[in-house]
């Protein structure tokens, strides 16, 4: 029987495979001769006995070629392996013929689906999934509404905020102070410093304000934002609109919480060496908008955003070619490729200052340039001083 143990192993002591004159067992298994029964088997997996017969007959012709070669094999022994090899290809053709999906019964699918739903939505998966499906249906049929700026609250809350929240909470570990300075209702203008090469600070401010007050911050963006494909439409869906006096006043009159970053590209595109030094605050357009609508100005100081992408260089010629304000070079960005786009995990502090009231001025106050400049300076100084004190309090950049 020791011999019988050796025989089915196959290479008969010769090294490698296919060194013999005849094709190997595997090659014969793939030969087109057996193709016809395989196809028939594929069509009817629950094979009737009629189909079996040709499958069993064919290997009978081939089995000797596999088994007659070893001279020392006893004549009675091959009988058992012959049957084994005869049925083995048949079983194999059965498995191969059926597609990978056809073999799994519907019940298994359902069970897997239910299990996955339970994993995803918890024990209350049925109503949860029904709600999710209702949401999905609303999206697919377009049965939702956007406001006049194109703001889509549903998708903002469900997706944009949900996607940004881990970044805000786990990556930047944002600490928010002075949330009570944001009015619970009515129009207000949040004025913030701008930094970080990519306007991540705006997104983080949106998430933080929404999580702490439940209000949506409506950012005012540069026209470059709305000129860019994808970015522009996502910005509109997220509640942004163009930074122009018409839109700002319209939103403030409509009782929205509007966010502006008056430094603009000068702020986010400033070199790392000038971090936390406020740039010029535009032309004070945001102050006139607040004066005209009489809403409070809430100064916001953001510490931490400067360090996410330390801007050490710029390619002005390429920037001009592409029509963008700057092409950033950070210690990691072009060097590590896409990996350089991962922001550094600096620790962020957001402090909302005391609101500056604008409703006590006369009606024509917005037309008085000196007053507008003074209020602009007041807001700017408040933010700058808060930035300095926050920097003093901060233990280190990353902690």
């Amino acid at each position, binding site marked *: 029987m020791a011999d019988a143990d050796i025989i089915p192993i196959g290479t008969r002591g010769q090294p490698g495979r296919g060194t013999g004159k005849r094709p190997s067992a595997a090659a014969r298994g793939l030969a087109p001769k057996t193709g016809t029964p395989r196809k028939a088997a594929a069509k009817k997996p629950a094979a009737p006995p009629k189909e079996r017969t040709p499958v069993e007959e064919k290997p009978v012709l081939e089995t000797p070629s596999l088994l007659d070669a070893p001279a020392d094999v006893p004549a009675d022994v091959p009988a058992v392996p012959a049957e084994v090899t005869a049925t083995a290809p048949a079983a194999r053709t059965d498995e191969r013929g059926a597609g990978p999906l056809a073999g799994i019964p519907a019940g298994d699918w359902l069970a897997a689906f239910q299990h996955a739903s339970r994993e995803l939505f918890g024990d209350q998966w049925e109503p949860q999934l029904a709600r999710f499906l209702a949401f999905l249906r609303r999206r697919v049929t377009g049965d939702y509404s956007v406001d006049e700026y*194109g703001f889509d609250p549903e998708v903002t809350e469900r997706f944009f905020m*949900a996607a940004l*929240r*881990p970044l805000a909470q786990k990556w930047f570990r944002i600490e928010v102070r002075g949330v009570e300075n944001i009015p619970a209702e009515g129009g207000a203008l949040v004025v913030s410093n701008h930094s970080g090469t990519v306007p991540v600070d705006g997104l983080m401010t949106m998430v933080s304000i929404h999580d702490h007050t439940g209000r949506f911050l409506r950012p005012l963006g540069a026209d470059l934002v709305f000129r860019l494909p994808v970015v522009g439409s996502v910005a509109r869906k997220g509640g942004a609109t*163009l930074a122009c006096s018409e*839109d700002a006043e319209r939103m403030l009159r409509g009782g929205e919480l509007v966010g502006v970053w008056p430094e603009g590209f000068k702020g986010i595109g400033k070199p790392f060496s000038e971090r936390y030094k406020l740039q010029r605050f535009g032309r004070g357009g945001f102050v006139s908008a607040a004066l005209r609508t009489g809403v409070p100005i809430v100064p916001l100081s953001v510490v931490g955003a400067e360090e996410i992408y330390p801007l050490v260089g710029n390619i002005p010629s390429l920037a001009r070619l592409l029509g963008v304000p700057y092409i950033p070079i950070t210690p990691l960005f072009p060097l590590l490729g896409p990996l350089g786009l991962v922001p550094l995990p600096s620790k962020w502090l957001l402090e909302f200052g005391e609101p500056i009231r604008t409703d006590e001025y006369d009606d024509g106050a917005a037309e008085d340039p000196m007053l507008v400049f003074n209020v602009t300076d007041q807001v700017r100084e408040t933010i700058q001083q808060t930035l300095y004190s926050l920097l003093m309090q901060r233990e280190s950049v990353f902690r």
Partner: protein
Amino acid sequence: MGAGRTVLVTGVSRDLGRTLARTLATDPGIDRVIGVDVVPPRGDLGDVTFVRADIRNPVIAKVIAKEDVDTVVHMSVIATPGSAGARGTMKELNVIGTMQLLAACQKAEGLRTLVVKSSTTAYGASSRDPAMFTEDMEPRRPARTGYAKDVVEVEQYVRGFARRRPDVTVTLLRCANVIGPRVVSPLASYFRLPVIPTILGFDPRLQFLHESDLNRVLRHAVREERGGTFNVAGDGLLMLSQALRRSGRTSVPVPAFAFGGLAPALKSVRRADLSPELVAFLTYGRGVDTTRMRTELGFEPHYTTASAFAEFADSLPPAARRTERVLGSLAERLPAVDDDRPAQLTLAGGTDG
């Protein structure tokens, strides 16, 4: 509202003008309605007297003088060269036609009211646009070609006329894109395409005015005689993606640079006419503020933007809506949800602060 008003309507060969002329003729306050166009109308004009005249030549002055017209409704500013032939003809029809008509109006002593149907295309569409245009705003990028430029020029002439004839009530109605089951317009034919190309990465805001509301607002303007410029549009906005989902059409995002090449191809097979201003509109969208329409003009549209589009979408051949059916059949197997409580999706991140 004095009895015996005589109204002259230009551009009656097209459906919107013809319908307006017919409905004006049934108005008890109006005695006579005269329809003017270069080509005879395609349908029944009812009680309207049709005068085949070209507003591009001074004959129109004789018609106005002879018939003692006191109200002129000008709606023969066309958006596409389609029927007129080439762009040159279209421009001539729009601009020179308006000039001639206004010149004739200036001479007409008995004229009391001029109603001009303009379009919100006058505001253009660009990335620098404010979200909602009010009547006082100018386009951020002045139009240099096509229909948009025609509209701007027509409006200039109308304003000039209003200055010269302060005794005439001039109502300029800037209507949003008119839509409805029977409307033939560049935008309507765009939405009737079997597969709708959209511009990759842009999702414009759209505003529609239902065809019956257009008819109503023009009649309202003739009846009420309130001078000024008014934006006219249905309430609310639709995003293009939303509109396509609602109509169940298949859309294919095409990069902006390739979209320009698509337009002539579609035009050559006569499926849609994607003029540059329509492409700009489909890129950046536009919204107009209709406060003045309500407060000063005193007009209230019956249809919102969404319901106007829904009615238009019903007239389209039914779409497959496979995803919707699959989701629907799945949802039927699950318990019903209360709509008040929004679904709590916890796929990514938590909702807790």
